[in-house]
């Protein structure tokens, strides 16, 4: 299934190639810029930042802001740093990503291999749901979580992310399975293989690339979510983004920008890692299906 990595056959001249490299490098600089600002300022003492020169390299190099952001910065009444919140995020993200990906895979499987009368309408409903602004669901969702006894828990947060993640995961898997040769499925059906057997034996083994896409997408979105995390988390389940926001948004106090930037990079580490490690598979996964209508 995984299409071979082939380069296009188009030939380019020397001048054109220089130009292309130039453009590519220019944009690489553009993309790196904010990270540069964040990183450079996270290794400076505070006085150097407030004294101006926010773009310049540090004249005194220090790792103290990083240590402070991770383990001793004041977040609420506790000088705990970001570390305890890291695990809250992990506990929320892992089940949410797992369940929504499984559901998306099953939905995609049914929608492409077990077509029924109103399947397009079902898919349309699911897809349109991706477009609702999340701000409007806060109050009714709070009510439902209360009713279900999940208010203020990590499970509740995972649940919310699963609900609003299904649309996209289904979209990815449906598009991927749509180009799957249906002869394989009908052959298996003739051989008497059941619904789940076909899924497990025939589709699942080749779903690697699209699973990577779905997992990366879900992981990034859920990890970076602030709105749901802030609104539905309890005291002991607040995720990393909420803690980071608590760290950077001093209302009437001194702002330690170096610590803020260090904290921001720390909070983004898992997603950065996912992109850097998984990036190659990501393009391959996209290639293998999701961008083919």
């Amino acid at each position, binding site marked *: 299934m995984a299409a071979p990595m082939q380069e296009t056959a188009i030939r380019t001249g020397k001048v054109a190639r220089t130009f292309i490299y130039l453009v590519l490098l220019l944009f690489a600089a553009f993309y790196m810029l904010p990270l540069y600002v964040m990183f450079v300022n996270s290794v400076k003492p505070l006085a150097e930042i407030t004294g101006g020169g926010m773009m310049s390299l540090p004249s005194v190099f220090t790792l103290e802001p990083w240590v402070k952001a991770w383990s001793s910065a004041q977040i609420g009444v506790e000088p705990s740093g970001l570390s305890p919140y890291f695990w809250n995020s992990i506990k929320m993200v892992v089940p949410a990503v797992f369940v929504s990906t499984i559901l998306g895979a099953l939905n995609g499987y049914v929608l492409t291999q077990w077509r029924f009368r109103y399947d397009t309408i079902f898919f349309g409903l699911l897809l349109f749901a991706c477009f609702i602004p999340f701000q409007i669901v806060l109050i009714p969702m709070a009510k439902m979580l209360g009713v279900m006894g999940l208010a203020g828990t990590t499970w509740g947060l995972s649940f919310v992310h699963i609900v609003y993640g299904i649309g996209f995961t289904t979209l990815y898997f449906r598009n991927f399975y749509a180009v799957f040769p249906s002869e394989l499925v009908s052959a298996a059906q003739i051989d008497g293989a059941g619904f789940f057997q076909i899924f497990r034996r025939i589709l699942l083994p080749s779903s690697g690339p699209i699973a990577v896409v779905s997992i990366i997408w879900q992981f990034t979105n859920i990890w970076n979510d602030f709105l749901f995390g802030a609104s539905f988390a309890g005291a002991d389940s607040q995720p990393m983004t909420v803690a980071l926001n608590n760290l950077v*948004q001093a209302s009437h106090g001194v702002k330690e920008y170096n610590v803020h930037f260090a904290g921001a990079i720390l909070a983004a580490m898992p997603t950065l890692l996912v992109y850097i490690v998984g990036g190659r598979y990501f393009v391959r996964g996209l290639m293998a299906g999701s961008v083919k209508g």
Partner: protein
Amino acid sequence: MRKVLNKKAVLFAGLVVSSGSASSSEVEVLHWWTSGGEASALNLLKQDLESQGIGWTDMPVAGGGGEQAMTVLRARVTAGNAPTAVQGLGFDIIDWGNQGALANLNAVAEKEGWDDVVPEALKTFAKVDGKWVAAPVNVHSTNWVWANKPVLDANGIEQPTSWADFEAALKKLKEAGITPIAHGGQAWQDATVFDAISLSTLGAEGYTAAFVELDAEVLRSDEMKEAFDRMAVIRNNVDDNFSGRDWNLATAMVINGEAGFQLMGDWAKGEFVKAGQKPGEDFLCFRFPGTADQVTFNSDQFMMFDQGGEVSHEQEKLAAAILSPEFQSSFNVVKGSVPARTDVSDAAFDSCGKQGMKDLIAASESGNLLGSMAHGHAAPTSVKSAIYDVVTAHFNGEYDSETAVVELADAVEISR
């Protein structure tokens, strides 16, 4: 709520049995003092409660001067899972009180004698229908001017006491190539400046008529127009990069001598102190010219949410701890504000703090202690935000003063 709390309580009790203590009680506190000095100051309260055997579950949510926390509060109340105590400001407390969501603290208030020591103006927000529902932590006052003393001295400027003096001082600074006013163009900062300026043109009575009673005639009056004209003067004396700047960066401009003045609440003092400056020597703090007798205030309070019909023992303890003179003193020294009760010793405060306490008592006695419009202590949030819209639009050049007063009356009307 019940279920979650009970589960927690059971778990907690289970843990505690082995250590032999009998306490299984705790408070959950939702607040937005999430970082730096103010968070560590709040820790004093936590320790105080812990010494009385009451646990503290911290629920910090920062953002937008408490806006994010209020969103969370709404979600929590809707889910039937309200925290025990919640930081609240001005009309938010009254709104929640009117929803019947707050507990009655009258018993502890009587025992501790709050009615005698808390200024009347604060009680407007701490009491709903004659019932104490919140415990005030501090009083911030907002009509302060902060100035770099060496810069003023170098340019031959005395501490201005009238608008004319102030305008002349601005002119001198501008000619000397110094940014006269350090300002951050964010709606709440524009409104903070407008607070002081409109008070200077309207006087205490007019200010109340305009922003508390929302009298359309006063909102459209010439004095209000004059206030907008003065805002335009301020606008002409800020630097080009003012918009979107955080207030503390504006304060840094005064500290560094890049700018002469800043109009900001008393929390700005912390920045000067942190930079090693001394009041009276390196920097000056004085009331905005023309408002020397008045104090516009905002007060952080902790609302106690009803836990099933009655106020809990822990809530009473927490409320009493908040209003204890020791905590009021130690917390407010750190926060830059002044105590919410008038009988606290000023020994631990610096000269600006001492003056603030004196001003508060004097203003309270003469009826000049006014809730700050900009900080939600004059009109409900919806009206406050509508006023913000007009003030900030005028400050950014969308309206002239003539249009601004008409828009102001109109916006207030829509938002009521």
